[in-house]
């Protein structure tokens, strides 16, 4: 028996099918979830994929946060279910305050698409256990609202508690404070990041690297070996 991973589609979500594919490649069972349904179909974990939900009008993630499915996700996340927000999904997680801080327009004001080097700072979350702390990985980055900000106190707290999960290497692509690419909640079950691990799971496609697969194999180990 394998674990079931819900992948949410909001209106304007783009990377839902890609995320389902990544989940499948890792040996997990993807379960499509629709924004209007509160029912999480008994999944063991949830991924909020990238895209431009509601066009990112108003603010990225601001409108999706109020969808029915998010009520259930918030409840379950608080109860310990693994939740991963990628790019737009990360933005939704900050808007819901499951993760602290906020995401703003890149400091250079352009959309940026590139292969991005990261350091995995915390290898103990539900989504990073398959990496080593300090490991360097490369996955695609693509966004226009990717600048992570939070007040100094929050940043210090994140650092002190080891909740900065990923940091940008070889150049900060968007002005994110303290080079933060992704963070986790205190319990380590809710993780959000701007780069796209689901686009780095097959050798031939995209950047030609599979560095992103570890997110999903981490989850598999946690859920199936638990």
């Amino acid at each position, binding site marked *: 028996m394998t674990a079931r991973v819900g992948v949410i589609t909001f*209106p304007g979500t*783009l*990377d839902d099918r890609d995320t389902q594919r990544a989940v499948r490649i890792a040996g997990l069972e993807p379960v499509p979830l629709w924004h209007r349904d509160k029912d999480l179909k008994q999944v063991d974990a949830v991924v909020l994929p990238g895209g431009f939900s509601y066009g990112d009008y108003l603010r990225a993630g601001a409108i999706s946060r109020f969808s029915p499915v998010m009520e259930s996700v918030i409840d379950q996340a608080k109860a310990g279910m693994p939740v991963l927000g990628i790019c737009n999904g990360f933005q939704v997680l900050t808007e819901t305050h499951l993760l602290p801080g906020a995401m703003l327009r890149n400091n250079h004001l352009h*959309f940026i*698409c590139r292969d991005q080097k990261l350091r995995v700072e915390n290898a103990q979350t539900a989504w990073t256990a398959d990496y080593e702390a300090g490991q360097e990985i490369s996955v695609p980055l*693509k966004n226009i609202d990717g600048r992570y900000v939070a007040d100094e106190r929050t940043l210090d707290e994140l650092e002190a508690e080891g909740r900065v999960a990923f940091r940008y290497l070889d150049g900060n692509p968007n002005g994110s404070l303290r080079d933060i690419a992704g963070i986790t909640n205190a319990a380590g079950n809710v993780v959000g990041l701007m780069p796209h691990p689901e686009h780095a*799971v097959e050798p*031939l*496609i995209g950047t030609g690297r599979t560095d992103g697969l570890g997110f999903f194999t981490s989850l598999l180990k946690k859920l199936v070996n638990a």
Partner: protein
Amino acid sequence: MSLDTVKHAAETPDTAQPWAELGLKQDEYERIRAILGRRPTGAELAMYSVMWSEHCSYKSSKVHLRQFGEKAPENDALLVGIGENAGVVDVGQGYAVTFKVESHNHPSYIEPYQGAATGVGGIVRDILAMGARPVAVMDPLRFGAADHPDTKRVLPGVVAGIGGYGNCLGLPNIGGEVVFDSCYQGNPLVNALCVGVMKHEDIHLAKASGAGNKVILYGARTGGDGIGGVSVLASETFDSTGPAKRPAVQVGDPFQEKLLIECTLELFREHLVEGIQDLGGAGLSCATSELASAGSGGMRVELDRVPLRDATLSPEEILMSESQERMCAIVEPGKVARFLEICEKWDVIATVIGEVTDGERLEIFWHGEQIVDVPPRTVAHEGPVYERPYARPDWQDALQADDAAKLPRPQTPEELRAQVLKVIASPNQASKSWVTDQYDRFVQGNTVLAQPEDSGMVRIDEETDLGVAVATDGNGRYAKLDPYAGAQLALAESYRNVAATGARPLAISNCLNFGSPEDPAVMWQFAEATRGLADGCLELGTPVTGGNVSLYNQTGDTAIHPTPVVAVLGVIDDVNRRTPMAFREEGQLLYLLGDTREELGGSAWSQVVHDHLGGLPPKVDLARERLLAEILISASRDGMIDAAHDLSDGGLIQAVTESCLRGGKGARLVLPDGTDPFVQLFSESAGRAVVSVPRSEELRFTDMCEARGLPAVRIGVVDGDSVDVQGQFSLPLEELREAHEATIPALLA
């Protein structure tokens, strides 16, 4: 407000009408009266004027475009040809691919962001309307001089618009072009291409048949977009205070379009659609008349049911509105409820606005009163056709006589080195990553190759690894020197680019960007270019599946260079066998395929070093292109080469530099004995490519080339961290990279 009904028109034959303001000629207006047997109503006049415009009717170009059908090569792969929203090609395993290039030139000059964004939106709806899921976009772009202040306004806006719209739709951008030339200063060219994939049985056509079937308009509400021109009608027909100001530009909503795509694909999946048409230029006028014209019966539309964003719109304006993100579907009555349900699921507004009738007329009503009663064919398909006069311009001979061979050449290796750096760093030859990094090339998770590779390639089947490759090319400088050869060179380059990645070229689409057809010299360029393209496609066996014509790209009396842009689509059975452009393996051997002649007319070197355009473009040899393509495809299939890059503008040194930079490896070049290094490095002879061959494959590869008669010369080896031309100069990769990559950011930052 008085409504100009059909009845009223019949009773008031002498009412003066603003046909001239709407762009109609006197004889065209007379023809409309003859067709109808009375004067047209305001609404009918609106429809005819917009549908008989150059943009919709192709009245100046039609007689020339016919060749694409008449000279079409025998090709079993063509499932749907010219005339539909886009052509469809069989790529095997039950899959069909549809692709097309469109232009949004003029709007992008007025409002770069929205002009370019809505250009992407429009071509994506064309592809969707064929029944396909859009899977990638490309954007061939041309701007004025790179250092002109207005280019700083237009280019960033256009790029942001293409990215803003395409990224939000989730379509990977896998290639395009960025070209600078002062001839495009007041007329930037913003062409956009979309590729879509479907199964054969999913092909949909734009026709309305089956009396009693419903006409459903769905998508965005209709507003006053893009109808600046028709306001004249409203002022003629309506209250004395005059019409509200109507915008001439359209604003796009990519989020709405994304919903429209997913919603439409779900409608197709449930087989709810009999016929479908996107709304683009000429809006509802076009969609209703084309659907009815292509179908078997007539159509009746209740125009007052159209959901509006602006309640003050007149019926004429509603008919002509170019509001974006709308589609029109023909649906069996029993399927309407389910259709509306799916639209509701996607938050897409859908309204039954009429039905297919068993008559032969297109009839449109406004609150119960008839305002249109026309034979739809006369609106949509039987518009005017012009045989515009054309003549070879009197300056053509002088231009061709001004041979680039006479230009002063570098005298020393140092001078040659400096000129190489200058060309590599020139805006046209420099890296375009400042542009392409603003486009998502990863979304959908099927991108095998994207810019700066020779062609974009996407996987279309995850089980079998079937893929398609697309490249776009055009060279206005060549076409200016000789439009017939220029069009063929664009075709040849695009074809070569597809083959270089290992894909087999199947079919083409094109966008013909020219000046005013009322100028006989421009019309001659157009006639020559279309003739060249049609002859070329026949010889290469790649049919034209569709395309677009953009005329009147000129400022005052000065036209842009004739700029035919050609997109070639190819298929590759297994994307694992694709050939990338990067030199990655030290020690691999570099072979130059094809013949290098002294051909500098229209070259990058002549432009960058001498600001010169004259002489003849490189010679076209399509048989050679075919042979080269076969070799490149076989070599990819049998694993004989690890990298390939086609040679085009900038010549050998440009290609080698790009492949070295991409792979992060240098090259040592040893040019053939007794040749002129300058010519070897900068000539732009067509039909060439450079490949990187593993030593273990050398014999097999050279045997194959020899057996098939393709010249293949060993010109060097992948080695070190500079590009070293023996006996001439050495250029460290870092210096080349700096020269190549710093130019565009410096110009636009």
